Every structure is written in C-alpha cells, then in structure tokens.
C-alpha cells in the first residue's frame, strides 16, 4: 500500500499528492527492493523527483542502506544537475556555494524528516518544483543578487496609470514582446524561469500579480462575461491592468537584460 501523507485536512482526510505521482507510486508498490532500486535508478525513464522523495523520507518503508543508497545517489545526482542549470555561474556570484548550500539543506531536511513525525517535507512529495523554488528563493535572498544595485530600483515606468483612451492590449503586447524577445522559447528554460521568478518576486505586489496571471495565460479582457480576466481577478479596471503590465515588463526586461550581459 502506498503510504498516505500524514498531514490531514480539518476533516481528518489525508492531503493528496498530485494524481500522476500517486499513479507512479501505485505502480511501484509491492516491488521487491531490488526491482524497486532498478526502476528508481533507471535514467532512461526517470521517475519524478516527488517519487524519489517518497522513498527517501519514509523510514516505514524499511529500506536499508543497501537499497536506500542507490536511490539517494540517483536523487542527489539529478538534484545537482538541476541546480547546476538553474542556479548558473553566469547568473549569480558564488553560484557554486549557493548550490552546495541548497543541496546540503535538502539532504539535512530529509535526514531529519526520517526521524520525525512532524511531516515537514510532505509538500516535497506534492509539488517538488514549487518546494525547491521556494527554498531557492530563501537561499538567494540570504546571499543576494549578483549585482550591486538592483536594476528595478532605477527602472522608470513607461506611463503612469491613467484612463486615457489608448489601445491597451496593443501596448501590453509591445511591452511583452520587448521583454521576451529575441528568443520566446527562453520562457521554457529552467535557468531563465528561475531568474524570471526571482525578478517577478521583486516587483511591487500589484505588478507581480498582473504579470503572474498574464504569464499563466489569463486574458486582460474578454467578450465572454463568464470568462475570468485579470481585471476581474485583481478587482480593478482593464486599463489599470495594462499599465501595471507595461511597467512590470519594462522592469523585467531591464533586469533580464542586465543579467544576460553579466
């Protein structure tokens, strides 16, 4: 049986992992330890990080060092590879130190979690990417950015919020294009996303929310009254959303360009 998460809702229902994670765990349930190790260490068809975390943090699974070691080493090797790409030397000073600290913290957290009933790492089985991103943010905050001055401080808004009758969507498109160009596919790169996330987190809250929703594909406006728009979600006018987006894109463009140059 796959061990349920110990953390429960107010109705004493265990918290759920994502469906695809539960599915992989179910497919591995009941395998003999040797077969399990073979499957988890297979690089041809790598299991999600959440699955490795599951086997690493639960002592109830009774995996001894013979079987836990190859699972751990596979996890660690993949973690190092992911961190090397996301916290790159070209982006941050002391990147190697930061990567080391991140890896060390995670190893310590798993070791502590194995000896505890507190279920501190349950979320790493639910959404590893988000959990690791949060940890990265914490560590990056501690070490600070590579640059001595924050370009966001010097960024000047293109326009102040106003109700002038300009074609708002068009302006936002231009600002977005300038920010993402010349390589739109960069948005899918891990290193770019981590830098972007860091830059977005540094924006003022109203701009952060507008750009965050826009990046998720939520429309600024819609003819469909049932459709959720950024303006509805943020409880403001479309014009306001557009101005926030323009300002945010301009700041992000400056930050990302400055980092590209370093």
């Amino acid at each position, binding site marked *: 049986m796959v061990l349920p998460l110990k953390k429960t809702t107010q109705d004493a229902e265990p918290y759920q992992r994502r469906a695809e994670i539960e599915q992989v765990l179910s497919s591995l349930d009941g395998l003999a330890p040797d077969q399990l190790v073979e499957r988890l260490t297979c690089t041809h068809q790598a299991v999600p990080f959440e699955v490795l975390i599951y086997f690493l943090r639960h002592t109830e699974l009774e995996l001894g060092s013979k079987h836990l070691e190859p699972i751990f080493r596979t996890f*660690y090797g993949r973690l190092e*590879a992911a961190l090397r790409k996301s916290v790159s030397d070209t982006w941050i000073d002391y990147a190697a130190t930061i990567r080391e600290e991140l890896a060390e913290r995670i190893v310590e957290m798993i070791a502590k979690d*194995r000896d505890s009933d507190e279920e501190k790492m349950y979320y790493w089985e639910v959404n590893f990417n988000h959990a690791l991103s949060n940890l990265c943010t914490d560590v990056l905050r501690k070490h600070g950015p590579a640059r001595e001055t924050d370009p966001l401080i010097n960024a000047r808004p293109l326009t102040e919020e106003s109700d002038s009758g300009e074609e708002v969507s068009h302006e936002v498109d231009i600002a977005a294009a300038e920010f993402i160009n010349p390589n739109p596919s960069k948005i899918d790169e891990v290193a770019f996303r981590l830098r972007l996330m860091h830059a977005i987190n540094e924006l003022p809250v109203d701009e952060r929310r507008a750009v965050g929703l826009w990046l998720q594909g939520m429309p600024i406006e819609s003819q469909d009254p049932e459709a959720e728009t950024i303006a509805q979600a943020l409880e403001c006018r479309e014009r306001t959303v557009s101005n926030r987006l323009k300002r945010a894109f301009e700041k992000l463009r400056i930050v990302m360009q400055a980092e590209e140059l370093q």
Partner: protein
Amino acid sequence: MNTTTQVSKDNVLHKFSAESNQDADTLARYLKRYPQYREALIDLSIEISTAPKFDELAVEKLPGDNSRQAWSKFQSLLSPTDPASTTPHPMDNPLSNLSDERFRELARELNVNRLFLSRLRDCSIQVATIPQQFLSVVAQALKVSVEGLTSALDSPPVVASGLRHKASGKPGAGDKITFEEALTSSALSETQQAALREMKDE
C-alpha cells in the same frame, strides 16, 4: 450556510497545489469557488507557474560524482535506529523476548523444531549462511525488518546459563555453525530439512 467558507485556507491552497493541471482555467475555477482566498490563490498560482521544471534537466549526468560523499553525510545524520543508519542500532534480539507459548507457536509456523529455533535465537548459526528467504519469513513472522533481524542474529553467540564450555576462553564468531550444519544436527525431520534447503539462495 455557505459551505465554502468552512474550508480552511490551508486546505484550499493545498488542493490547488495538488492539481495536475494548474493553468489559468484551474485558477479561474478556484477563484469562483473560493473568492475569500482570492489573493492567496493568485499568489500561489504565480509561484507554481513560474517555478522551474527541475525534472526536465535532472537526467543529465554531471561529470564527477559528489553523491557518494553526500550519501556518507546523509547516513551520518540518521538516527541509530534508522534502518539505513551507518551504525545500525543493535536491535534487541526479537527471538529472545518471546513467551514460551509464542516461541513454540513460531517454531510451528516456521516448520522447525524448538532446538533449531533456539540455535537461531542464541545466534549460534552464521548469519551469512542463512538463506535470505528464511530470514524474510522469520522477520515477517516477528514483524521486524530483515536487516534488523540479520543484524541482531549476527551478534556473538549466547551461551545459555548453566552451560559450561570445555574449552577455555569466551565463545566467538568461530563457534558458530553453518545453516547446513544446523539443519543436520538439530533433529529436524527429513521433510523439514528439505523444505529449508529449498529456501537456499542460488
């Protein structure tokens, strides 16, 4: 009564983070259903959507291997009772604490006699020669881990009180007999011996 207000913010946020598809449509659905947590949901959705997909890059093998060193560090942090600990806590011999009745019952379950089981309990059999399958069956019957049982049975042999050794000196590992010797010298029936031999590792 509005039932949605009864759902705690933590539960709603967790539910959202466990969604397989966290796109704008999913967020819109949550915003409609839980308007009271609007800002928290928006912030969470942004964090999740901008988080890198670490799995995608993780299959790339790095030159050099720090994982062995990391494993040693990890193992040294584990509690001595952890099944993967570097210095496994010597588990109390799970066969020593059984009542007479449970001891007899276990012998029956394992299809061995009490003499053979006593030898196992007293660590008189070299663990390395005991078939893994037999150790698994015993561990399962005792509800302990195979590794824990193996470690407990690997202790120096226990000398029953009242017995005296003819030889001088303390009994050591060399005094242990092999599994095969235990089979032939414990008054087990031919059928019992054959069944136990069947379990021998290839």
